[in-house]
């Protein structure tokens, strides 16, 4: 029940946060939040525990870590690359 409570509060918080993002930042917002959805990597890491370790768990767990890491690393790096391009007038042009 507590988890559902946390879930609902987070949804409301998300709505509150995102509604204020101007449309020119929509792409970085998408790819930045997309990187956050890679948080599932925590679940993937926890799945690779010794206790219940059989071959299938290890293979699928490693695959999960790989895909989640691609999501995290790729997502943050791409977002950073994009945001680095947003410049004010008069800022150094490359």
């Amino acid at each position, binding site marked *: 029940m507590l988890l559902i409570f946390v879930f609902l509060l*987070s949804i409301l918080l*998300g709505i509150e*946060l995102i509604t204020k993002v101007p449309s020119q930042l929509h792409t970085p*917002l*998408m*790819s930045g939040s997309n990187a956050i959805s890679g*948080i599932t990597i925590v679940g993937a890491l926890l799945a690779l525990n010794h206790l219940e370790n059989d071959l299938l768990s290890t293979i699928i767990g490693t695959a999960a870590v790989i*895909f989640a890491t691609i999501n995290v690393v790729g997502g943050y790096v791409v977002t950073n690359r994009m945001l680095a391009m947003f410049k*004010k007038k008069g800022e150094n042009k490359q």
Partner: protein
Amino acid sequence: MILSKELIDFGYIVAAMLFIFGLKMLNKPDTARQGNLVSFFGMLIAIVVTLFAGKLDYKWILIGITIGSAIGLLFATKVQMTAMPEMVALFNGFGGLASVLVGFIAFHQDNGAPIATAIPIFLAVLIGGVCFSGSCIAYGKLAGKVTGKPVLYPGQQIVNTLILLALIGLGVFFVVTGNVQYKYNTIYEIIGLALVLGVLSVIAIGGADMPVVISLLNSYSGLAACAAGFVIGNNVLIVSGALVGASGIILTNVMCKAMNRSLANVLFGGFGAVTTKKSGPGEKKEAKAVSVSDAYLVLEAARNVVVVPGYGMAVAQAQHTVRELGDLLEENGAEVRYAIHPVAGRMPGHMNVLLAEANVPYEQLFEMDDVNPIMSTVDVCIVIGANDVVNPAAREDESSPIYGMPIINVDEASTVFVLKRSMNPGFAGIENPLFFKDNTRMIFGDAKATIQSLVSEFKES
């Protein structure tokens, strides 16, 4: 070393807070980049504390993280800015796939899980599966590997509905059955059907509707991570997943509003395939073409210029040349604005990123609602590779399929230049009365080449 549960939970709380602050900082162009770093730092904390959560299989973790980081870095640093939409779609799909796998392992390691765990396992593999295969198709469409046209067949909606119903049925069975073998069979079937559903639902969507679909898939990847969080009872997954889920839904809603369509209409409408009929108003008007040198003379005299880019600018890779022309116009004493429609391009904010890449300062980028009120004071409006988002039929012609969609009112400017390859209708296949207006002049040819010639005209004078 193993950290206590309290310490790990504290790390997760810090991570969740950093995600929230990071997203908040994305509100402003000035702080957005730091915001992304803050969010990344949160992710790092969440990962590091997890590594101390118990005895984990560090060898495989190291292998997984190394491979994943290498692939992620390679993709993210090599990708062209114009290929950004498909890259984001692909990363998004991988997140969904990871959630499917996490859900499956949770089931595999504890087959007799109670209902409170079985339900989120079902949701994680379902949403994650749809997200993965849907994102792959979206990637294919955006990269031009799958046709950008909606793929439609009779009974499509019925098929999709049946698959969804079957999935719900299987889900209920998966949750209630006590037989482990049945459970395994069912979860395989659920994953398989979810993948099919993702393919079928995205393949039916046209390229112009991609911003909506990308936003929706973004939301799915968050919700899948959230479901995975319920499976393993982990707060940080729930909070972050919900934040992403909410953000995706908000964006989806913004995109739908910008097209004046409901989400159901986008998902089931098969827009663009059925609208080839012409609602011709009797008289056949002719579009007036103009040469580059004549266009130059008009631009040279203009004091107030608005540039309206669309997907065609991305295709022609014309953003740098466009900026060069904008700079020359400014040197010539004109005020230059770039007006960007919310659904221009193939993902939310697509044009902003391209123009930012070309070093256009963000103060010069204007949203539709800010630029429309001053449109009647504009001397020249240059439409580059945009079509439906400037189509006055959305305002005037009630029979038009895009009637009611908010557009940039370029036709109110004194002169409109439309850069276009040919007279073919745009993506949605709708006739555009803008081309036939008295103040509109067509400049046919490749957008980049046309602007390049305009730039040379300016430089030679």
